[in-house]
């Protein structure tokens, strides 16, 4: 599966606190007009992030999901990574080591390229053959 939609990469500010989040959120919302937006947040300069920053991420994700798009995170700094892990938000996003990898992931099946193990698990449960086998087991 290939997609030709443009991928928008947005650089996040170094301090993702309440005031910065308030400035950044309208910028993101302004570009979220088209259907199925593909967005990558570049965290490479983020040194500080607080609960307002996390809330801003969740608002963006909610908006993108409502438009059938996807929001991915790339180049997380250790500080950002710890906060996302602390607030359990890391599991809501696909996270990539570099912006290029995140952009590339939109070109094909995201699960296969970002996480081979996750991709195989997905196929294992979703393929008709497996589903049939599962049903048979349940019936037995």
């Amino acid at each position, binding site marked *: 599966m290939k997609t030709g939609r443009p991928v928008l990469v947005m650089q996040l500010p170094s301090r993702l*606190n309440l005031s910065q989040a308030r400035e950044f959120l309208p910028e993101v919302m302004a570009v979220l007009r088209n259907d199925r937006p593909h967005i990558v947040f570049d965290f490479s300069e983020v040194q*500080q992030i*607080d*609960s*307002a920053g996390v809330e801003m991420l969740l608002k963006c994700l909610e908006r993108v999901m409502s438009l059938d798009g996807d929001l991915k995170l790339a180049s997380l700094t*250790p*500080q950002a*990574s*710890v*906060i996302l*892990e*602390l*607030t*359990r938000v890391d599991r809501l996003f696909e996270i990539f080591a570099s912006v290029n990898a995140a952009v590339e992931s939109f070109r094909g099946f995201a699960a296969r390229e970002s996480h081979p193990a996750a991709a195989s698990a997905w196929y294992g449960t979703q393929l008709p053959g497996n589903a049939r086998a599962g049903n048979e087991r349940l019936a037995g």
Partner: protein
Amino acid sequence: MKTAAILVLGSPAPAYNFLASDDSQAAGCPGDIAGIPLSCIEILGASILQRTMQRFAEAGVDSFTILADASLLKVIKLANVMPGWLVKINSFQGEAEVWPSIEHSLKNDFENEISNVFLVKLGAYAEFDPNAVGEFAGSNHHSAVRVHDRLGAIGTWLLNQSADLESAGKEFQNRGQDASIKTYFLEGYVNRLSRMHDLRRFVVDVFLSRCSAQPQGTEIKAGVWIDDGAQVHKQARIVPPAYIGKNTRIGPASLITRSSSIERDCNVDYGTVLEDSSVLAGTYIGTGLDVTHSVVCGNMLVHLNQNLVMEINDEILIGANVTSRLREVFRRQDKKAPSIKSIKKDEHQTHWKGIL
């Protein structure tokens, strides 16, 4: 035969931080918390200083002197280090004054008919029998003995009246070992507490009975210690081994697991998971968080897996516990201290209840 102990608490400046190895410095993990040495911070209900004094007292040491850097005395309250004990507290100003003040205390002790003095440079937690060191020195007629483990000196000496104080001073100031001081090898448990990883290792070692130290409080079920006044919600789950300190509150739906410890006056809010972590005293942990492989103290989080020290200036996530801060405010108001507003300014110095 009287025995005394002089415990030296240096400031965390590199000159005193002789136990911090080069690799720990490179890893970026601190051996202190905002300038306070780990030996002064409560771990499982008691600090290393308190545990060391307890060990010496059990071995019959009569007199205790604590020598601390004057800047450290502004932050920590040594007056109530051991309630009910008679402890002399002296201070020194900077590195140059350390040995002269030790020498003064030693001479003072020897004049008061004390025959043996243990000189302890606090930092490491070491389990040894002080009487065995005394017997080793006495039977071999050694006037000065240093205590070693397999990795080297642990910063403890036994000196008697005929000891050469000049050579002891040279060794104390890390200017090489002197042949006149003999070595006593200990085989017991030693934790050098030179960085945060060692703090977590100490907690796990205590839980797994790898050393003789015990958490304070009551073991309410196998591997779960709860101290006085702690409140654990009935919907919270505590997986042994774990320690909950005095007046700490564990909120509903929270999970404390994998050898986690929470010191006194903390508040762990709704639905938060603490895994392989230690929360130092007076800390608030917000709602629905996942704290793993970390040491948290006030608004500072040390992530041990990533060797990362972070200051999180968001009290929704972590910060000083409000109740402990209020208690501090009331205590200060009792002493006719300035208003609450002015206390808030230096709250980073006052909110940590885990320091003495």
